[in-house]
């Protein structure tokens, strides 16, 4: 777990909740408000993000899997948010582009030119769910979409952004970006989808087999009962033919008649049962369809992002955009 991410979250949380704190030797001393006092049953919280310090000094740990941290995180996971952001250019950005050129995969000797651009991009946080017959997996995918590029945007939360007060977003543009993002997702999750498909078809087939086999067996059970009765009737008839006296013959004939009557009733009953089996088979099939392979997506967060880009055009004609917010290159589409 990235400690930097925990630190960012924790300190942003304290800031948002307006909780005063001091940080000394990596130990936070936080004065809690009433709401937090109730939650943590103390007026003052002393904690650290460093597991070693926590152990040595016997101080509460803030980290993945601790109540302290998870109780802060949990409410935000229920929210869907939208915002408009502005990322200011840093002096170091241009230097950064040059230092990271190797990430484009181009030979160091290849000539290139760099141009600074203004971009209105869209940040989207998708929740992609892959459902198979036996499991459902969730993937949280941040994507930045620009006018001629897109890129997986892990690390965007660490960027130094601020609120963009100028009203420059249009809903139709955002809707368009969401659709574009959805088209990109399968390529990002290619490996996961392929694995899921393989797993799914095997287990789905097995589940279908169980259902079909079960219905067939139920039909066979009914048939067997009818056959058993038929055999008994034949037996009674045979015995009546072979009977040595009229009274024995009559007894077997009566028995055969009774059995025939029973058979008629059984056939009628079984007819209803067959209908029920068919109906239940249909219900089970419908229920299994809920577990068909499905890929679904939800947008958890969206933001318009105004920022500076660096367009790098290489001698071979390839164009890349350096996105300072996440320190990575996106290739021109």
């Amino acid at each position: 777990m990235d400690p930097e991410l925990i630190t960012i979250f924790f300190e942003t949380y304290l800031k948002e909740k307006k909780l005063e704190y001091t940080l000394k030797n990596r130990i936070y001393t936080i004065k809690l408000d009433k709401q937090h006092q109730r939650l943590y049953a103390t007026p003052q919280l002393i904690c650290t993000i460093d597991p070693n310090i926590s152990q040595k000094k016997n101080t509460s740990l803030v980290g993945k899997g601790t109540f302290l941290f998870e109780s802060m995180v949990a409410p935000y996971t229920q929210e869907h948010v939208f915002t408009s952001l502005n990322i200011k250019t840093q002096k170091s950005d241009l230097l950064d582009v040059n230092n990271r050129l190797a990430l484009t995969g181009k030979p160091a000797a290849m000539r290139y030119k760099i141009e600074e651009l203004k971009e209105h991009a869209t940040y989207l946080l998708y929740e992609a769910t892959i459902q198979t017959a036996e499991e459902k997996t969730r993937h949280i995918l941040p994507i930045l979409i620009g006018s001629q590029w897109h890129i997986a945007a892990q690390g965007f939360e660490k960027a130094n952004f601020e609120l963009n007060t100028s009203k420059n977003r249009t809903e139709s543009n955002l809707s368009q970006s969401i659709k574009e993002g959805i088209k990109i997702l399968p390529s990002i999750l290619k490996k996961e989808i392929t694995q899921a498909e393989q797993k799914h078809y095997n287990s789905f087939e097995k589940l279908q087999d169980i259902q079909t086999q079960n219905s067939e067996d139920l039909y066979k059970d009914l048939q067997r009962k009818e056959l058993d009765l038929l055999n008994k009737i034949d037996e009674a008839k045979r015995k009546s033919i072979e009977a040595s006296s009229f009274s024995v013959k009559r007894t077997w004939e009566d028995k055969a008649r009774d059995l025939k009557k029973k058979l008629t009733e059984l056939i009628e009953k079984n007819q209803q049962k067959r209908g029920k089996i068919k109906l239940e088979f249909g219900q089970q099939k419908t229920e299994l369809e809920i577990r068909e392979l499905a890929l679904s997506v939800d947008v958890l967060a969206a933001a318009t992002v105004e920022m500076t880009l660096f367009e790098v055009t290489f001698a071979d004609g390839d164009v890349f955009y350096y996105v300072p917010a996440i320190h990575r290159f996106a290739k021109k589409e």
Partner: protein
Amino acid sequence: MVQFHLQQPERAQALLSKDQIANPDHFRLCIIAHQLSVLEASDKLLALPLYQDKIQLFPHQTRTALHVLNNFSYRALLADEVGLGKTIEAGMIIKELLARKLVKKVLILTPAPLKYQWQEEMRSKFDESFEIANTPDIYNDYDKIIASIDTAKTPRHAPIVENIIWDLLVIDEAHKLKNSATLNYKLVKNIKKERCFMLTATPLQNNIFELWAVLDLLHPGFVGTKAKFTEEFVADTDGLKIKNKDELQNKLSKIMIRNLRRDTGIKFAQRIVKTHMLEYSKEEMDFYNQVLSFIRTQYDEIKRLEKVKGLDEDQDVEEQALLSEEELKTMAVRYRQKGLLTFALIMLTRQITSSLKTGIAALQRYKETLEDEKKIRVLEAIVFKGQHIKTDKKCDYLLKLLTKTKDEKAIIFTTFIHTQKMLEMELKVAGFSTVLFNGKMNPQEKEEAIRQFKTDKQILICTDAGSEGRNLQFAHILINYDLPWNPMRVEQRIGRVHRIGQEKDVIIHNLAIIDTVEAYILNRLYEKINLFTLSIGEMDTVLSELKNKGSVESAIFDAVMTKKEDIIDDFTQATKRVEEIKQFDQEIFDRPSNEERNQSKTKSEDKLKL
């Protein structure tokens, strides 16, 4: 390649058209939180930190939750032996699926008496708020719902429940679904569900076919048709003998989990029962006998009412059909009267043995319902006598008993608020620190009472109505100041302290007065069914085996008044049946314990050495 589709386009649209935009810090917190919500999710319980401080978790519970989530996440029967905390396991699984955002629409079906208990457990332990489906619109209006299965199957509810695709369906007391002809069974069959977990402590109540029926409902065809299952695994026509045990166990292990107590390694506390048979003073005994005699007279009158035409419960339908409309109405009113009168007498009998104060208050209330002047005068004389009694032998004995327990925490149970208040006063005068707990208190007051008892008060005086669902295992001494007549109530009292996690043996003191109804119940019923030494939760099974499906209290009252002890025999038989089926259960589910496995390993190693 399969394409992604937008799950809720309207939500995405709403997100974009929001007037209020999030500030950057809030946005940052949300996007980090969402990303953290999927990390390390497959091998750990993501939501565990949110509840582990509130619940004493045991390794088998965490193991079970993870096993279900990782191995059979769509269909499972959780069938832990009684008292191992199945509800907690189910709660952990529900919480985890919600935290991982794998389910949204959740329905828990329970027997009616358990719905509020489930709601409280999910709220207090897992911080999940579930709505009770008292009206049909709840199913569509909320995502997390608890419904009584008997309500859900009604024509008002069933079509709505069956029309929704539930992400998760949890069914408690699943053994009650063994009969495919019942509406409950049909309801579960018709509900469209992605995931379904069933809970039962008694997968076998009479025979193995019941287990087959439940599993076939859970996962049709997984264990084969009944004929196929019988052919493969059942060795007799009654379904009480099995064959191919290993294969059967192997098959079952793919759809159900049954943790047995001895496999968990948990040391279960013993119940030590101390019954104190006390003697009333002469004036107390006289008063008691007079009240009982009055009750007997009243009951005889009710019984005589039955003889009146139109109030014969055994009267057949043909005879009733001959009655006029007017006679039928009178009959209905009398049935109601009879029920109410019997109930009032039962309460009176119980109150009079609880404490003098409660008894007198009850007599005064009862007097107001009387019209017969003569009876009123009799009752007034009895009350007058009661008001002048100076002794209270039971309370005196309690004080002595508490003095002997020294500073140890103790819970005193009574059914009645009047007794509770009287005890509070007496104990305070005697110098004990006490705190009250009853059904009239609001949730905050209850929390505060428990907190006080846990921290600085020595004695909790508790009513039955207030104690349901509360875990008080930090105390281990329990005093039954009065005794409920329904053994389940006794079990519920004991269950507050004698539960998983109790480290000390539980000491149960029963106070009863010689020659009273309580003494009769204690000696004739409770001791016969070994009530106080049953293991956690077994009483529920005994009660489900009773032939008498009516009120246990009424049956006991009738036994006391008429000396016909059908209910006692019924309890004895039920206890015997439960014992028999326990043995069969062990045959199917018992695996060698770790100790036994080690022993047999050592033995085979010895053989090899030889």
